[in-house]
C-alpha cells in the first residue's frame, strides 16, 4: 500500500503521469482483492491473503522493471516511488541478489518464522522436488505455498 498523501508529501517527479494509470489499475485490483470474502473452511483461511501478496509482488516488480529493465523512469522518480511505498524496496533488494531473482515475497525466506528454521517450500527448485519425489516413488504434492500462494519461485524454475 502506498503512503497516504498529505500536504507534506513531496510532489511526484516528472514521468509519474505516464505510469499512474497502471498504478491506479493495480490499486483497483488490490481493492477488489481486499473486499473479497475468504473461505470459511479453516484449511483455506490462508488463501484470502494470497491475492494481496501477488498484487504487492506485481506492483513491486513493475517498478523494478521500469527502472532496471526498461530504463523508463528516472532515478529521482524511482526513489520517490520507493519512498512513497509504491514498491517494496526490501523485496527489490533481494531480487538483486543471486538466487533470489524471482523471489515471491519476503515472508517465504523468513527462516526464523518456520518450525524447522528453513525457508518456504516454494524456494525449492522444481527439479529437486521432482527428484526427491521420484526417490520415494510418489508424485510431487506441492502446488502452492501457504504464505502467498506461490507455486515455485526458485531462479531455475
Amino acid at each position, binding site marked *: 500500500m502506498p503512503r497516504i498523501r498529505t500536504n507534506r508529501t513531496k510532489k511526484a517527479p516528472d514521468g509519474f503521469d505516464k505510469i499512474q494509470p497502471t498504478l491506479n*489499475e*493495480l490499486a483497483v485490483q488490490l481493492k477488489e482483492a481486499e473486499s473479497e470474502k475468504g473461505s470459511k473452511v479453516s484449511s483455506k483461511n490462508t488463501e484470502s491473503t494470497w491475492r494481496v501478496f501477488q498484487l504487492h509482488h*506485481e506492483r513491486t516488480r513493475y517498478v523494478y522493471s*521500469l527502472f532496471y529493465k*526498461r530504463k523508463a523512469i528516472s532515478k529521482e522518480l524511482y526513489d520517490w516511488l520507493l519512498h512513497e511505498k509504491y514498491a517494496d524496496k526490501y523485496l527489490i533488494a533481494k531480487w538483486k541478489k543471486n538466487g533470489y531473482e524471482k523471489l515471491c515475497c519476503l515472508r517465504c525466506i523468513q527462516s526464523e518464522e518456520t518450525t524447522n528454521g528453513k525457508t518456504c517450500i516454494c524456494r525449492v527448485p522444481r527439479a529437486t522436488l521432482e527428484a526427491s519425489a521420484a526417490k520415494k516413488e510418489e508424485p510431487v504434492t506441492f502446488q502452492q505455498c501457504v504464505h502467498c500462494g506461490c507455486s515455485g519461485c526458485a531462479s531455475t524454475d
Partner: protein
Amino acid sequence: MSDWKRFKDPSGSYYYFNTRTKVSTKEKPKDFGSQQGIREELRVPLFCFQLLNRWNLVICKDGSKFYFNDDTKVSQLMLMDDDSQSLLDKVDQSLLALLIGVARGFSLNNDRDVYEEVSDTLKELSIRVADDGQIDAANDEGTIAVAGTDEELKPRTEVKNALIAGYSSSSDDSSDESENNTASVPGTLDEKDTEFRTDGDKSASEFIDLLNEYKFDPYSTWNIQAKRIMHDPRYYSISSDDKRDELFQTWCSQQIDNLNDKETDDVSDPNEVSEDLDSEDNLNPTKYHYLAHIISKSNITAETLFSDIKKENKSLFKELNIKENLSKKEQDQFASKVIAYYKLGNPLAPT
C-alpha cells in the same frame, strides 16, 4: 424390434423377459439379438438426389447421408465438390431436416411428399445454375441429362418409401448440424499446425508485430495489457506466458529508447542558444552555486549575519529554489563559511 430384454438375476446369471407377453425364460429366445440385424437393415439407401458434376446425395433409412459419384463410383461422407455444396446450401435446411426425419420413419399427417419437394427444388436450382453456366460455356445437354437421371431414380425410391416402418424420429436436424461442424474442423486444424511448425524467431517477430498493432502502452505491465490481445490467434503463437512477458519487456525498452531519442532530438534541434543553456546547466553540479552567488553579490560588513542576507534577498531565494535544494542546516553551514571568507578579507573582493 424384438420385445425381449436381458436381465441379471440375483445369482448373477442372465434371464430374458418379454416386455409384451410378460414371459421370462432362462434360455435365449430366438428373437433376441435380431436388433443387430435390424440396425444393419436401417443403413439401406432410401432417397437419392442428383447434384452437380455427377455427384449424388444419398439418404439412408436411419437418417445418415453420404455422397456418391456416378463416374468414379466413390462414396464419401463429406462432399468435396464445391458446385454441389453451393447447390445444397441453397436448399431450405428445414426441408432437408424434414426429409431425414421422414427417412427415419416420421409420418406426416397430410399426404405431403417431402422427397418430391426436395427433388423439385434441387432440379430447379441445378437448371438455374446450369443456365448461368450456359452464358460462359454453352452446355445445355448437362441439364437435360440431370433431369433425366433424376426421373429414372424416382420410381425405385418411391417403392422404398412405401416400405418405411413406423420408427419414431428423435433428433431430425442433429445429423445435419454435426456434419457441418466436422466439415469446418479440418481447416482450422491445418492452420494451427502450420503455426506450430514455424520456428521461434518467426513467431517472436509476429508477436512483436501484434504488440505494435495494438498500440500498447510501454509503461504498463504485461498482466494488464495481455487481456486486450488474448482473443487474437497470434497471441498463442508463443506458448508460455513467461516468454510473452519477456518479449513484452524487450519491446517496451525498445519503445522507450525510441521515445527518448526523439525527445533528445527535439531538444538539440531548435537552436544553439538552448544548447548553451543546457551546457550551463550541466556545468552546475554543486547545489551551493546560487547561494554562493547571492552572498557574493550582497555587501558584507563585519556585523553581517546570514539571516540579514536572507532577509535582503528573499525574492532571489524563492526564485532560485534554494530552500528545496538545500536544507536549513546545509544553508547555514555553507553560508557561515562563505561569509567568514569574505569578512577575513578576500584579496579579490573590493575593499
